[in-house]
């Protein structure tokens, strides 16, 4: 937890820039629905805050992501056209993934300025706490979405994790 968080190379960001948003939004939507349905306590924990719109800003990616937990939706947007939101959370993709997988503490990332928060702070806390309790596993969720390709996908994600330094699966051992 003391090593600096990895940032995606700028070249990757440039290469991803022309990618179409619609298929990305479809994938993100399917993933969000799956996670919300597999972990219903996540939305329950958030109470009224689940109806807020959260703008996730992974600063090393070309897009902004708009999450609406109640509606179980997540959509991708161009940086030049930011959508309206109740709260914005910004930081490198690695910070979001490490927090989601229990590898990093959200408050510590905020104290160290790796993450920045604007807007409805209470809603952001509710989201952070609900996700922390759900013990999500992105690699597992993606594998579950990909049917017969689950095995090869898990292998590919493990390789990507090693190469990029991103945390792509739940950290069962916090050491």
């Amino acid at each position, binding site marked *: *937890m003391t090593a600096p968080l990895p940032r995606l190379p700028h070249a990757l960001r440039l290469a991803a820039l022309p990618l179409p948003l619609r298929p990305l939004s479809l994938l993100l939507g399917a993933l969000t629905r799956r996670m919300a349905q597999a972990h219903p306590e996540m939305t329950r924990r958030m109470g009224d805050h689940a109806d807020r719109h959260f703008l996730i800003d992974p600063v090393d990616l070309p897009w902004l992501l708009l999450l609406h937990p109640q509606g179980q939706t997540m959509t991708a947007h161009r940086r030049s056209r930011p959508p309206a939101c109740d709260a914005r959370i910004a930081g490198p993709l690695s910070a979001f993934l490490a927090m989601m997988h229990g590898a990093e*503490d959200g408050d510590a990332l905020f104290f160290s300025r790796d993450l920045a928060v604007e807007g409805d702070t209470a809603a952001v806390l509710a989201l952070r706490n609900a996700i922390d309790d759900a013990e999500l596993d992105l690699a597992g969720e993606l594998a579950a979405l990909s049917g017969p390709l689950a095995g090869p996908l898990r292998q590919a994600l493990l390789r990507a994790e090693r190469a990029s330094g991103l945390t792509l699966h739940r950290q069962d051992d916090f050491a």
Partner: protein
Amino acid sequence: MMELVCPAGTPAALRAAVEAGAHAVYCGFADETNARNFPGLNFTPEDMAEGVRFAHARGAKVLVAINTFPRAGAEPLWHRALAHAEAAGVDAVILADLGLLAHAAEHHPGLRRHLSVQAAAANPDAINLYASAFGVRRVVLPRVLTVEEIAAINREIDVETEVFVFGGLCVMAEGRCSLSSYATGKSPNMNGVCSPASHVAYAEEGNDLAARLGGFTIHRTARTAPAPYPTLCKGCFTSGPQTGHIFEDPVSLDATHLIPRLAGAGVRALKIEGRQRSRAYVAQVVRAFRAAVEAQAAGRPLPESQLARLAEGQKATTGAYAKTWR
């Protein structure tokens, strides 16, 4: 070995604490009955029963904080919390209010009672009264005492003492601070939240990050400096000719190296603050302190603390344990 009492804001954090070596975990219900009533945190009665099963199966205890002060007319909420705690099979409840202590002693005599830090019992007379009148078995001491004062108190009481060794600092006599009420109308004592997130706003202004609470700017920090949460007692204020952290710096407590002295002072249990923190924080801090209390019990030198990065302001203090007040 000294007992390590560890925080859990969620069932996942409870499991992380137990697996990292907590002897006991403290938690609360998702309402105003506990002093960490934060959005997205805490336990339903069903969560609590499940958490107790998990902890007991691994030899750990569960303590439930019902440590706010009931509002007149709304007592049934606090009474129900006690009944739910007993039904879940918890090992003790942590209470602050005199009326609630009396109710617990009368209606739940078999439920072990600890006195919350929120009661601010900081002298032998007060502690002995809570013990004789309400059968309190352990007192969580407020964070305003030196190690010598704790030793002196322990010589004059028969109940166990528990002290904070790590985490956010509440620097006043707890349960008595009204700073948060002035700025937001909500307080840790009545609503379970100090400087509540619902009243917090951050804004990037030029090269600064401004942190506001209820419209008041509590901090303004440069882009490269650690970002503090706008807790009122850790704010930067102007008073007469002086501008600075009038009450306390935005730092948090780390008393790791005082563990042998606290043991010598007769302290039974060490408490880690942080029910509002993630399971990653809980696992790391609990693991580090479990190693420290084991080293202390075996007479080995204590491991160096590696926890500074988790601390607010990313700086640590030994608080009042070894402090002269401003």
